[in-house]
């Protein structure tokens, strides 16, 4: 058969078989026993020519409500931020995207330097000493942070706030089962939207490896990290903070707040929402924890002629050396998405990141003030927030119905909290990024009221 990705001609095949000394291609599979040979045609989707495939893919894509056509007020971990056009141009350079992990540093200096700069960006934003080359996403990075903390403290108990993203806590529970860790969840303070500090203090024991807190938390609220930090450090456990990297343009860094490990998802930094993935987790630690970090790490060095260069380093930590003694099995990173984040931060610069964070604060607070003034919607939580907040609908309102009506009106509505927090039935999280205009915000609040 002819195919545009396959160069094999009949003549090639004949010449190659002659060199091999085989009569047919079939002969090259003689080592596969007949009992396990597949005969017939696999029951899979059929082949399409290029034009037909493009048409088919556009048809599938066309059946999804995208952010170009709909104003998105949905957040809860994935956000509709503006992506500067240069980001896509740079990550579309195939020298980057068609390369593998930079095993041969002499011909991979571009990727290695890009990762070194990503690590530098993460350290600068988080105020931490060292960062790795990235993780699958923010949620798995949090689970890896728990594993690191357990290993470093030789303790088995992990205390996590219920204000941490519900899916991150689900992943944490599966990871903890594998590693034999105990997970203790701590609730939310009444009417405040942040971790209950009394309950937290009671949950921390001398066997607690770490406290895991997210800020801004799943409800959008800012946690009082300055009050949390002494509670865990008094018991010689570690403080793990999961943060929104864009918020760090404005908010105090995890390093300055006393975090031992800072993680998060870089999606707000120029990475497409893409139905939730791929994104990019970041992972940063204090210096004493450096050699316990999971994942790839790039370091600076010199070549045999004294030129600056970069290599994968500290590999003694990694699975391919440690095999069954490894504490993490990750053997890749999200290099291309880390590149998105680096380009985004290069574009934003020192002023731009702060201004963008500020725009998020201003627009979300404008939206919350309209909701508060609406008469039908209310704001149950009092804690300060960054770019998303919880709205309570009148009793009896069904969020699914409201969101379907909003969709018809051109809006992607908020996240239904009742699914993950039964006590918050009738509550939703509304996210307002810098992309939302005043008109969209005002109309969204009006449509939400009308949908009730």
């Amino acid at each position, binding site marked *: 058969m002819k195919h545009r990705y396959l160069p094999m001609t009949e003549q090639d095949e004949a010449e190659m078989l002659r060199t*091999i000394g085989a009569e047919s291609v079939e002969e090259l*599979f003689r080592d596969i026993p007949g009992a396990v040979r597949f005969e017939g045609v696999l029951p899979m989707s059929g082949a399409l020519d290029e034009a037909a495939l493009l048409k088919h893919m556009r048809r*599938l894509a066309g059946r999804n409500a995208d952010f170009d056509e709909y104003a998105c007020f949905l957040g809860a971990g994935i956000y509709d931020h503006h992506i500067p056009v240069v980001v896509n141009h740079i990550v579309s350079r195939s020298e980057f995207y068609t390369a593998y992990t930079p095993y041969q540093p002499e011909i991979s200096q571009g990727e290695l*330097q890009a990762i070194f700069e990503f690590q530098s960006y993460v350290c600068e934003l988080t105020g931490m000493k060292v960062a790795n080359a990235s993780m699958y996403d923010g949620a798995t990075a949090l689970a890896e942070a728990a594993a690191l903390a357990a290993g470093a403290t030789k303790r088995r108990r992990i205390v996590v706030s219920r204000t941490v993203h519900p899916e991150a806590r689900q*992943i944490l529970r599966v990871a903890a089962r594998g590693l034999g860790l105990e997970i203790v969840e701590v609730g939310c303070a009444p009417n405040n939207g942040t971790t209950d500090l009394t309950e937290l203090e009671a949950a921390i024991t001398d066997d607690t490896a770490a406290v895991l807190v997210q800020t801004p938390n799943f409800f959008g609220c800012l946690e009082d990290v300055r009050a949390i930090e002494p509670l865990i450090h008094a018991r010689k456990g570690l403080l793990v903070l999961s943060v929104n990297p864009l918020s760090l343009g404005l908010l105090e860094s995890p390093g300055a707040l006393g975090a031992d490990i800072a993680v998060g998802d870089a999606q707000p930094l120029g990475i497409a929402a893409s139905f939730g993935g791929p994104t990019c987790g970041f992972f940063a630690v204090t210096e004493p924890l450096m050699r316990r970090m999971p994942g790839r790490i790039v370091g*600076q060095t010199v070549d*045999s002629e004294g030129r600056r260069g970069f290599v994968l380093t500290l590999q003694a930590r990694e699975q391919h050396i440690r095999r069954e003694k490894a*504490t993490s099995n990750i053997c890749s*990173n999200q290099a291309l998405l880390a590149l998105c984040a680096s380009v985004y931060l290069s574009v934003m610069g020192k002023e731009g990141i702060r201004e963008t964070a500020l725009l998020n604060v201003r627009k979300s607070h*404008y939206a919350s003030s309209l909701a508060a003034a609406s008469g039908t919607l209310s704001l149950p939580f009092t804690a300060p927030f960054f770019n998303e907040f919880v709205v309570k609908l009148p009793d009896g309102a069904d969020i699914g119905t409201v969101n379907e009506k909003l969709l018809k009106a051109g809006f992607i509505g908020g996240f239904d909290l009742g699914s993950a927090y039964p006590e918050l039935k009738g509550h939703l999280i509304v996210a307002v990024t810098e992309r939302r205009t005043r008109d969209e915000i005002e109309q969204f609040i009006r449509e939400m009221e009308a949908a009730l």
Partner: protein
Amino acid sequence: MKPDKALIFELSRPGRAACSLSECDVPELDVASVIPAGMLRAKPAELPEVYEVDVIRHYTELSRRNFGVDNGFYPLGSCTMKYNPKLNEDVARLPGFAKIHPYQPESGVQGALELLHTLQNDLAALTGMDGVTLQPAAGAHGEWTGLMLIRAYHESRGERRMKVIVPDSSHGTNPASAAVAGFETVTLKSDERGMVDLEALKAAVDGDTAALMLTNPSTLGLFEERIVEIADIVHEAGGLLYYDGANSNAIMGIARPGDMGFDVVHLNLHKTMSTPHGGGGPGAGPVGVKSKLLPFLPVPTVGRRADGTFYWDGDRPQSIGRVKAYCGNFGILVRAYAYIRTYGPEGLRRVSECAVLNANYMMHRLAPYYDVAFPGVCKHEFVLSGKRLRAFGVRTLDVAKRLLDFGYHPPTIYFPLNVEESMMIEPTETESKETLDAFVDAMIRIAEEAETDPQLVLNAPYTTVVKRLDEATAARKPVLNCSCG
């Protein structure tokens, strides 16, 4: 000597900016009135101040200092560095795929759900499995997910089996994944032909065996000819068979893990299904299972209703839970789906035939100059040993560095561990005979250079932007960021 390539931080000049900020069309607000001072950043993050041309030139220059499949032949064994089709890149960027949110109402994402549902079915058919989760983000993530499924299966039967058996030729992630899933690893020595030693396997399995993890074809590029007997031995002891799909590019449409007796399988979509490696990621590592493991699959999967609509199916009370946020690496899944549809089932079979033909051809041409570790037919890759060059003081590392001067990415070196001075070569199906011949000629020339002028090889590379780098100092005195702030 050219000066060092600048870091983006070193290009910074106060007052420059590359961003175009959104208009602030809402009332001004003093941030201190809504966020307490103690929560605000005391010191700004010292990001570089550059303008758009700096950004473009900086990263364009970095890209020119990098080597991908589009730059040239990349026969990195076990990594399946095949051509990454451009159509897949284009369709993944369609707004209807790239600009959608995982929590949107199902009615507004029917196209995305249909794609995922079809992909689940196609991958199940390809591997001979009964169900698939698309959540895992990478091969290693898939391994761990599969082992957690195996653990849940045994626990549901009241058994806490502790042992996972891996061959000594296995990838390092296999034992590492077993460890983080709470298992102990038993390493199995290969026989002299590089195959699983059946007697050793019989001695290793017992009532505490949870699973045998196998890559088939193996990391040595060899098909385990006695796979049926291997499966029987493990199953008779009550254990399960795990298939590491790293090497499935050799067998699409020819043999299916499900028919070989495997119970759980992961696929690396960034290998077999052509999605780009991205410089180290993102990838995707879907996991397929036989029916007895279906109750434990991660939630949600995508279901199809009788009326033809698609939905998130989270109704699986015995599920191990969730292994990845949202629905996995959707953008990668879109590319993999597009790849399947460029070939269809008969095309995929031809892909594997061409991959195997290419590998056998190269192995035969190179056999007079390097030692073939395991003679016979290979599958998609083969292992050479560079041990005979040691007589001239030249090692496999030096051969790899010399290949850089010929414009090639070298093969995987020093893996697998059970072959000395090993080179693992995987040409893939998307390379032409001329490309294979030119690479083989370069390898032959290097073997001759090693004999006649070893210094030439030992001092390579000559043509790259940096020469060999001091990795020891990098690890001893780590400099892991530029601390420009």
